[in-house]
């Protein structure tokens, strides 16, 4: 009997090629999308599970709440002091380790300086982060503070072999080179790790940890891990942490009140396997998953598959009349309904199985592309615990049954006596046409919605890329590493030498650069105002505004010609006493300084226009002692700029020059960027051979700000294309079968005088109507979703009607084109043939 079902199924598919192709291709697209997303979801949810006993390992996370704005941020960084206090107070904690990433310069295999990340850890680290060692012993690897454990690829890169134990790594710093002995080589971490450490060394309290840091609860400097004793649960600990930190955290006096250092922070232990998707900022490797993104993509894949199932259902019921006779006959021959339902489910399973084969081919072919696009080493195999065989078979069964169930019941509902009577196809039972139209509406609603999202995402990305950032992004080279000990003393020489490079017009040192992550705030008080404003305050060198091409709205920029433009304390670089510092600060307080502000700051201070701010005096809390302001005169107002992502609002800025921490050198140039860069690099290498040249063009750096958003846009575009293909396949199939069924009606219309044009219009309208109706569903949902997404940007495009009209017009055009070719063919046919047919 099953053979008979299979025979009928295959021959019926072979006979109705269009039908077969539409179903198989549609389902294959849907299944392939689902399998690819499944692989992606698996990759994203498998993070850090390679760590031995990871169930017992937890990362300490902190949530800091800004009491003024109420906004809070959860970060993976925690103070050194907290994990130490935690381990002391909770018995369930077996071991703990604070880790901190440093980025020193080391000599590579050829002796050239390269910047490397070295993770400084506490001794229990490799007990907590259990990973396979190739050489050496995890228990003793960190015993000696002058030894390092390195991973396999670092070993190969540095020494050409993984047998690197006993070899030496040389770190370069301003105090000269220092050697570390390689004590162990461990296996490379998989990419599915929230951590990334190529070189690990023991953290030394006193040198790696500042004495002030040991007990400071406000110094979020590194990542902390704890391992619980076997059988212990984390929940009771987490439940106690709020009360615990109030009890334990050090307190200080402010305005006559005792304030906890942890007043604005709460802590939580997060299972290692959940860290990647926890949404907390400050991942040590920079890798951070987004649970919402995963959910959205998974949802979209399921939608595409649902659309393909809808196609199957729609075409099967539209074609029902063709199968009615066979069904009736089988009933007459004694088949009961369950047997027939079984037969049709077999058919849909066969179609789904063929589609699955095709989908697997698509998955295997697109895997390398997906891997590089997601930057993930997505595992793909059929067998094993995370093999694809089981989910594939499951998905095939599920889709086969879901797609085939309604048609099976629908097709077996025919009453044989009516169907078999006069060799006539049975008239369709009422209602099924309405169901088909509803399903088509839903399909196109999905397609249109996705097209709208794609258009909005791309419009927004174009907007942030092309909008005026308030400075001139073209022709600026940003050089990093100016704060390194070896470079700092050379900064002026470097700047002078670089200024002489042909093509270089100007340069300036700065603490705020393009797409940098540091923030620095200072309290500012206006005369006559009690409340302190907290504004972004950054130290920059003379000529910064000119080099960056910022707009001067009023007043002047800082210059060498005015003594008060220099806000530095004039202390020696190192080795000064607190008395010297105090004297210098008092002198600064007496004489005052000049500063520039940006428009947004001026507005915050209450000035109605840039010009009004000029010459006004404010007080800046920039000294080491609390409550002592430095009088600052506003000499210039600059236009607002976006040095960082358009996700963030325009930063308030007060710019002054105090010669402090200035890690970036901005270089404005004319002419060929590559040539200028090369010449600047040559100068760097000559003067600072021990520090790698790390420079990037401003426009390239700015483009990198939106890589994540671009990935979202591409994903939407991909899904939109798939949805449109699947939707159109379905529409084409429906048009083909419905017009076939209406052949006689069309013949009669033609005999009665209808022109080809009238027939085409009739058919096209019949199939365009659901597409137009789909807009009513798609528009509000897409509008809501995109408003939400756009709200994540401070600078955003207006959500106008254009994307909506564009998407609807596009979908309608595609739908009409799909139906029209078929309609024209049918409408041109000789009516006599059509009428003789019955």
């Amino acid at each position, binding site marked *: 009997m099953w053979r008979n079902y299979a025979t009928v199924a295959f*021959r019926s598919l072979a006979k109705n090629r269009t039908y077969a192709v539409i179903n198989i291709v549609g389902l294959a697209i849907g299944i392939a999308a689902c399998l690819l997303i499944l692989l992606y979801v698996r990759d994203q949810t498998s993070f850090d599970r390679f760590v031995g006993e990871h169930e017992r390992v937890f990362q300490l996370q902190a949530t800091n709440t800004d009491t003024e704005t109420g906004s809070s941020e959860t970060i993976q960084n925690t103070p050194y002091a907290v994990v130490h206090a935690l381990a002391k107070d909770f018995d369930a904690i077996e071991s703990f380790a604070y880790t901190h990433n440093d980025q020193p310069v080391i000599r590579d295999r050829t002796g050239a300086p390269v910047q490397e990340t070295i993770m400084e850890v506490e001794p229990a680290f490799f007990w907590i982060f259990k990973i396979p060692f190739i050489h050496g012993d995890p228990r003793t690897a960190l015993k000696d503070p002058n030894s390092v454990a390195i991973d396999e690829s670092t070993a190969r890169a540095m020494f050409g072999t993984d047998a690197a134990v006993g070899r030496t790594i040389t770190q370069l710093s301003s105090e000269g080179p220092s050697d570390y002995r390689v004590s162990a080589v461990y296996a490379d971490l998989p990419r599915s790790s929230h951590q990334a450490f190529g070189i690990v060394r023991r953290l030394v309290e006193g040198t790696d940890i500042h004495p002030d840091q040991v007990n400071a609860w406000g110094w979020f400097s590194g990542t902390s891990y704890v391992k619980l004793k076997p059988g212990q649960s984390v929940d009771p600990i987490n439940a106690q942490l709020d009360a615990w930190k109030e009890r334990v955290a050090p307190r200080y006096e402010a305005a006559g009140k005792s304030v906890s250092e942890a007043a604005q922070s709460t802590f939580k232990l997060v299972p290692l396997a959940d860290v990647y998707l926890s949404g907390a900022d400050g991942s040590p490797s920079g890798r951070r998953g987004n649970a919402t993104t995963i959910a959205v993509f998974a949802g979209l894949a399921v939608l595409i598959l649902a659309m393909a199932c809808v196609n199957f259902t729609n075409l099967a019921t539209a074609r029902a009349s063709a199968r009615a006779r*066979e069904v009736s006959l*089988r009933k007459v021959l004694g088949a*009961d309904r369950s047997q027939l339902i079984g037969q049709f489910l077999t058919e849909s399973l066969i179609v789904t199985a063929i589609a699955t084969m095709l989908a697997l081919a698509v998955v295997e072919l697109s895997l390398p592309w997906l891997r590089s696009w997601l930057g993930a080493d997505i595992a793909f195999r059929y067998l094993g615990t995370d093999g694809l065989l089981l989910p594939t078979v499951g998905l095939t069964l599920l889709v086969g049954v879901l797609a085939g169930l309604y048609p099976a019941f629908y097709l077996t509902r025919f009453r044989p*006596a009516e169907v078999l009577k006069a*060799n006539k196809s049975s008239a369709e039972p009422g209602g099924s046409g309405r169901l088909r139209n509803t399903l088509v509406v839903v399909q196109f609603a999905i397609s249109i919605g996705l097209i709208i999202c794609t258009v909005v995402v791309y419009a927004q990305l174009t907007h942030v890329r092309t909008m005026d950032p308030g400075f001139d992004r073209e022709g600026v080279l940003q050089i990093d590493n100016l704060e390194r000990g070896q470079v700092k003393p050379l900064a002026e020489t470097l700047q002078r030498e670089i200024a002489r490079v042909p093509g270089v017009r100007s340069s300036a040192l700065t603490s705020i650069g393009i797409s940098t992550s540091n923030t620095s705030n200072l309290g500012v008080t206006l005369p006559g105002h009690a409340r302190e404003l907290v504004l972004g305050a950054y130290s920059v060198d003379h000529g910064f505004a000119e080099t960056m091409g910022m707009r001067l709205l009023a007043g002047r920029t800082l210059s060498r010609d005015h003594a008060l433009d220099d806000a530095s304390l004039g202390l020696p670089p190192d080795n000064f006493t607190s008395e010297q510092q105090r004297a210098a600060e008092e002198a600064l307080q007496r004489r005052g300084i000049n500063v520039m502000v940006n428009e947004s700051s001026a507005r915050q201070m209450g000035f109605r226009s840039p010009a009004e701010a000029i010459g006004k005096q404010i007080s800046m809390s920039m000294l080491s002692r609390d409550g002592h302001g430095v009088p600052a005169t506003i000499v210039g107002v600059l236009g607002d700029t976006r040095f960082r992502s358009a996700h963030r609002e325009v930063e308030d800025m007060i710019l002054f020059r105090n010669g402090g921490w200035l890690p970036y050198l901005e270089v404005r140039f004319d002419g060929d960027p590559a040539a200028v860069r090369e010449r600047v690099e040559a100068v760097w290498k000559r003067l600072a051979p021990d520090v790698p040249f790390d420079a990037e063009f401003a426009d390239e750096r700015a483009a990198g700000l939106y890589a994540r958003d671009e990935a979202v846009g591409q994903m939407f575009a991909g899904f939109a294309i798939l949805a449109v293909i699947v939707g159109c396949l379905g529409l084409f199939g429906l048009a083909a079968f419905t017009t076939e069924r209406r052949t006689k009606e069309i013949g009669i219309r033609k005999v009665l005088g209808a022109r080809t044009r009238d027939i085409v219009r009739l058919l096209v309208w019949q199939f365009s109507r659901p597409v137009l109706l789909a807009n009513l569903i798609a528009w509000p949902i897409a509008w809501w979703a995109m408003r939400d997404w756009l709200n994540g940007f401070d600078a955003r495009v207006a959500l106008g009607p254009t994307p909506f009209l564009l998407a609807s017009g596009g979908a309608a055009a595609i739908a009409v084109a799909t139906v029209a070719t078929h309609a024209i063919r049918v409408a041109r046919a000789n009516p006599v043939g059509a009428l003789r047919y019955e």
Partner: protein
Amino acid sequence: MLSMRNLSRVYRTDTVETSALDQIDLEIASGEFIAIMGPSGCGKSTLLNMIGLLDSPTSGSYRFDGEEVAGLPEAKLAGIRKRSIGFIFQSFNLVDELTVRENVELALLYHGIGAGERARRVDAVMDKVGIAHRARHRPSQLSGGQQQRVAVARAVVAAPKLILADEPTGNLDTVHGEEVMRMLQLLNAEGTTVVMVTHSPAHADYAQRVVNMLDGRILQERRRAA
């Protein structure tokens, strides 16, 4: 074999009520060959469907093999159909996707008969109706007469007690029509009860009893002298 008492069938739509069968009384004994005649729309086919358990009466009694079948659920009816009744249609109703052989075999599929036994019986019956040489062809490759022979083969392969034929010769020319009639006669001679709807008085002459219908009633019954 079967008996109908006061059997009526009314079709209702929203506005119209049509009485397709009106108080039919009919007895058919085992081994009979009966022809039902009458003008279009007189209820012949409805009666045949009723006999074949493809339709249920609105009122009245229908006993099949001594069992009351009026009002039985569809699954029970399907069971009786498959055990006892074979159908032949005017339009053959062969499945286009299946070969001749597979079409004939179809009638045995729902009987739970093993593949070997099925093959034996299918071969035998195809031989009997003379289409064995066409076993691998598709219905569309056969002439009308050949198609109807396949349909006859399919109707008899499960050895039903009753064969119902709805204008079996209606789509055939005279020669092929006679051929099919002789086949039915042969089956009847072997003991199968045959009930046939026909427009052709000549073909009705093959039957032992002719039932004439008009407007859903039996007008007259006439027994052919043996």
